[in-house]
């Protein structure tokens, strides 16, 4: 059974206060694709990611991961296959050491301690953070926290990686390093961001979201030079493409 493809059909989500954050959203993502989900603040990116892991449940529409419909019953199964990092890495790190934090997921799935150790070391190596393993997470720098929060997702060996604004609040050097790391991953990934330079670097495909729905879906290279579209969604061309004609 392949878990790598994602099918979202006509999804609606309204917050309890009546705010409709996702509105008739449909996409289709296949195995190994790297997709940027871009849109201004409030476009509904975070809400969509929360729906995809069942933190929120949609009022309408469906989400199919691999061959499995997302529902209360299938959630535990699906969550093993989807790794997610939050916009604020602090919310994701709650144990006393980096090692314990990365081991938290594998231990919950009752892997034996040898396997847990292999997973933790492997995940930390992938994000270049093995040297941090005994540090308390709350004393790390922003870039280090981000790397570790990604490792906490990787240690579950997910097929799909969802990331919410991974480059937000990173200094240029940490951001560069993170981009390097992200490019290495072979996972199917969806990166919610308004860092269009990063999107251009890491993702072949871009989905533009505005007011809870898809307004454009295509190759990143094409979308990033469509000034009219970007303007309409309160976005700007990546710096690297500014001053260039189509």
């Amino acid at each position: 059974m392949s878990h790598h493809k994602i099918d979202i059909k006509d999804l609606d989500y309204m917050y309890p206060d009546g705010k409709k954050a996702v509105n008739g959203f449909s996409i289709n993502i296949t195995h190994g694709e790297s997709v940027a989900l871009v849109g201004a603040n409030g476009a509904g990116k975070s809400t969509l990611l929360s729906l995809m892991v069942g933190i929120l449940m949609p009022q309408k529409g469906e989400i199919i991961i691999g061959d499995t419909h997302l529902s209360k019953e299938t959630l535990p199964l699906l969550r093993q296959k989807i790794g997610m990092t939050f916009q604020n890495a602090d919310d994701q790190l709650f144990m006393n050491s980096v090692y314990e934090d990365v081991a938290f997921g594998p231990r919950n799935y009752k892997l034996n301690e040898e396997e847990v150790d292999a997973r933790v070391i492997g995940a930390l190596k992938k994000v270049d953070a093995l040297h941090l393993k005994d540090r308390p997470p709350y004393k790390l720098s922003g870039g280090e926290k981000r790397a570790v929060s990604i490792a906490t997702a990787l240690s579950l060996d997910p097929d799909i990686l969802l990331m919410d604004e991974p480059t937000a609040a990173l200094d240029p050097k940490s951001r560069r390093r993170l981009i390097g790391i992200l490019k290495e991953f072979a996972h199917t990934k969806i990166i919610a961001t308004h860092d269009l330079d990063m999107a251009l670097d890491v993702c072949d495909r871009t989905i533009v979201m505005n007011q809870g729905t898809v307004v454009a879906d295509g190759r990143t290279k094409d979308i990033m030079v469509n000034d009219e579209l970007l303007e309409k969604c309160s976005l700007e061309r990546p710096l690297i493409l500014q001053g260039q004609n189509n």
Partner: protein
Amino acid sequence: MSNITGALYKIRYLDEFSRKKTLMHRLSPTIKLIVTLIYILLVVSFGKYQLGGVIAMSAYPLIMLSLAEMPAKELIKRVVVAMPFVMGVGIFNPVFDRDIMTYFLGIGISGGWISFLTLIVKGVLTVSSAIILVGTTGIENIAHSMRILKMPKIFVVLILLTYRYISVLMEEAASIWTAYKLRAPGQKGIRHDVWGPLLGQLLLRTYDRGIRVYDAMILRGFDGDFRMGTAFVTGIGSYLFLLIALAGFLIIRLSVITMILDLLI
């Protein structure tokens, strides 16, 4: 400013301290939990005028403190936070119970004052022993031990999340405080008319963060059971500790009882 950031690091002091490797830290978490629970029950079981007895019980936290190499200052700071609650419970004892029970330096001391003091000492001792337990064992290990002792899952999760929530709450409070200070330089404390909005913001922010932290746990397969890497081994040292501690408690508890019996006869 420096003391604000300093405070931020202090919030997690106990968590960090629990990773030390002293004799006390290495004892089995389950045994330490059992000993602490028995200790708390015994302290509470003293009669309301048995001031001498509860004072004798302070031997245990004092010995633990030195074995765990925990600075007394850090313990006292945390105990002080809990004291207003204890005082609130006993504050009316001296008012209602005015019979003179004993004389100290020629001054008559009423039963109310003695029971008030006894209550405070009981509070200090139970809170201290709990803090020492957390500081030598770590909250996750304690939670795991509670499950080994078959305490209900929901109860254990509640304790665990409450403990986590306290650090989240204090961190948010520190960041709101910093933001306030930056825009109100040279001002002592917080102006009373902005207390309301600040407090409201604090609650909303911590609630949101609490939910997100919980979501993050759920996403990684958390089902209410905290699993620690190493299985707890209960070595000969732990059993020895259990024996010595229980023997010590009993001696203090029983000798006080005998003393009282002596007085009555």
